């Protein structure tokens, strides 16, 4: 079987969520198929500046074919178009212009995918909102599997993405909430889809004591792992934690792992360790009492899965549908939406040993059942088999919907994307049983 993985950036040094996801999937599927990664020469996701040489190179044994980006992103132009398509009535042409402005615009990459498609069995397109995924899905829909990595933001309300989601062969969702949101926005229920997510390289053993010694942390603590950024909910986390620390003088400390792009309050119970290698990260999670995930927008939190894999409960921001849904389905975490809930839930996890232990065990079970690599690989392989069977039976597929003619594209008849998003139901995906671990089928 020959597969191509198309993603906006690729490299061992790129730790962005979707890009890391793509790398993990490519490396894992390479055990079952001949995998080639198709990507751009960009390293920076804001400018898409060509920083790597075009051509072929190998990353962790995977062949990577890079194509140059034809223009960098102009933040002013992109901002203007974003305001137009998100907040005002607009046309389809505006949305296409927005997509081109967002980038990374690499027509050569799309041409290559079209040329290589006959020799490939399937093409995995990562991140629906970028140029390569949209154009790739329209150019080779019969081979395209979309891994949307969609968050709850206005882009999902743009009309150009509906035909893409309805036209691809299959969609590999990260979570039930993501699937519910995409189906509500694009009505692609007839397209085969499966909630997969991604696994993680969990070490066989961890050494919590080594972490404590190395960083001189003796007291029990909660841990946050990730970029320390206001957009990740860290400001709210600090506000809440400072209030909590004032209320509970002998409560948990807070340990932060990750590079900071906002100021961190100086407090004797907040320890910022900066970016740490994976070994320290896993040892830190193992040494902690729980992981806090304050982010509002996640399509899948890998670090939450890692905490569950290590038997640590998670305290998540309940305003993030995905995290809340995962906490409920896994029965391995609590969530908060305001300070009072933060204090109560943190206190419950801190002081109630049986609850803490039970949630930790549930987390480990949840990870084992749904997010270990054999499970993830099996879901991908099953989907490939299913699509091949469909091909063999000669089932007909409707072509990708046309975008209309020149005049139709310029008709200002599209609702603001933010309005569309507001109409999409939010909240954790409905589930009959909160401890039902078999939903992710």
């Amino acid at each position, binding site marked *: 079987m020959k597969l191509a993985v198309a993603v906006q950036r690729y490299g061992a040094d790129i730790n962005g969520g979707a890009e890391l996801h793509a790398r993990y999937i490519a490396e894992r599927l390479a055990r079952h198929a001949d995998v080639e990664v198709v990507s751009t020469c960009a390293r920076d996701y804001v400018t898409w500046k060509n920083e790597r040489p075009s051509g072929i190179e190998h990353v962790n044994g995977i062949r990577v074919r890079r194509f140059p980006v034809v223009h960098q992103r102009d933040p002013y132009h992109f901002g203007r178009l974003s305001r137009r398509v998100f907040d005002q009535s607009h046309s389809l042409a505006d949305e296409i212009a927005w997509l081109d402005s967002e980038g990374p615009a690499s027509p050569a990459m799309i041409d290559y995918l079209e040329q290589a498609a006959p020799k490939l069995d399937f093409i995995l397109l990562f991140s629906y909102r970028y140029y390569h995924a949209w154009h790739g899905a329209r150019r080779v829909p019969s081979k395209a599997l979309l891994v949307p990595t969609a968050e709850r933001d206005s882009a999902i309300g743009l009309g150009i993405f509906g035909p893409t989601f309805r036209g691809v062969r299959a969609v590999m969702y990260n979570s039930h909430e993501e699937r519910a949101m995409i189906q509500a926005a694009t009505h692609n229920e007839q397209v085969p889809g499966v909630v997969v997510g991604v696994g993680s390289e969990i070490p066989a053993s961890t050494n919590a004591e080594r972490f404590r010694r190395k960083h001189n942390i003796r007291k029990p603590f909660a841990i946050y792992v990730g970029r320390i950024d206001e957009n990740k909910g860290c400001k709210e986390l600090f506000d809440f934690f400072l209030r909590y620390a004032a209320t509970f003088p002998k409560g948990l400390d807070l340990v932060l792992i990750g590079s900071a792009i906002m100021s961190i309050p100086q407090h004797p119970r907040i320890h910022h360790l900066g970016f740490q290698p994976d070994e320290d990260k896993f040892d830190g999670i193992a040494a902690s009492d729980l992981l806090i995930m304050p982010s509002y927008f996640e399509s899948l939190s890998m670090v939450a899965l890692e905490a569950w894999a290590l038997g640590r409960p998670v305290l998540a921001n309940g305003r993030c549908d995905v995290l809340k849904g995962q906490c409920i389905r896994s029965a391995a975490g609590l969530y908060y939406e305001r300070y009072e809930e933060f204090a109560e839930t943190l206190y419950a996890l801190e002081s109630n040993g049986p609850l803490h232990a039970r949630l930790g065990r549930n987390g480990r079970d949840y990870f084992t059942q749904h997010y270990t690599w054999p499970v993830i690989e099996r879901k991908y392989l099953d989907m490939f088999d299913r699509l091949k069977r469909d091909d063999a039976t000669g089932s007909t597929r409707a072509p990708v919907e046309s975008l209309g003619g020149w005049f139709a594209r310029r008709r200002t008849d599209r609702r603001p994307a933010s309005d569309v998003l507001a109409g999409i139901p939010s909240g954790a995906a409905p589930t009959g049983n909160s*401890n039902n671990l078999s939903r992710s089928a």
Partner: protein
Amino acid sequence: MTDFSVRSDNVDVEQIMRQIRARIREKRGVDYTEEEIRELANVKLEKFLDPRGVRSDLLEQFRRKREASLPPNFKFEDSTLFETHRGLLAFIRRLLRPILKLFFNPNPLIEALHIQSKLNAQQAALEPLYYEVIHNLVLETTRLGIDVKNLKMRVESMSSRLDFDERRARALEGVVQYRPGAVPPLQPPTGGGESREARGPETAEQSERRNRRRRRRGRRRPDERGPGGGPAPMRNGTGQSDSRGLTRDGGGEADNQQQSEAGSAIAPDVTPNDPGPTQESGQSDDRRLTPVHSPEPSES
């Protein structure tokens, strides 16, 4: 703080969250529900608040002013300057637009007006938020006013109980009799110099110690002592001992309530088994206080 018992393997996170939220609701509004506070804020502000400080019709005035002062907004897009309902004119304008652009560049003007239109829309969108903020402030002020009033009443009640306790303690000291052969009791100073001289010279340290003993007798109540006479254990809000030694500043509302309830039943604070303050001070004192009568049954 919420306490959960995990009895089975199945943990229902939603159920736990419901319990936590119920607990928070309990803590927030002991006396008034959200609806009641809303009603009070709308109708009976003057009853709780100083009308000179916060106007009870603030919200209504804000709403009236806002409706009266909102100008209509305009939309300004790329094509607004050249729009017309006449097809021919629109065609001619489109034809001549490149020529027009030879004379001046309308784009900055269009962009500026477009941004202004956006700002106007944002401002209009903010107005309801301001209204909401003011509305919430009025509600919270009302809630705080009620809380302050309640707390004042509680402080008054507790201070009157304290006075009563002190008077009772002094009365008890007056009615006890001492065993024969015991050292004569120390009499409170009557203001004359004779008794002081009769007892012989007294050092400042002894005097201070005696005063301290008296103060302690006046203060201590049985409900302040934990089991075995030790200090009362630190409790959490649910009244359960916190096994991890976590303490919560400012919490313990239940404790206060418990104490004030216990304080209403006064027990004699001098009992035959009470070692008395002399042991605390490290002195041997064989003066045993024996109540002549039990003034009231002690707290069961």
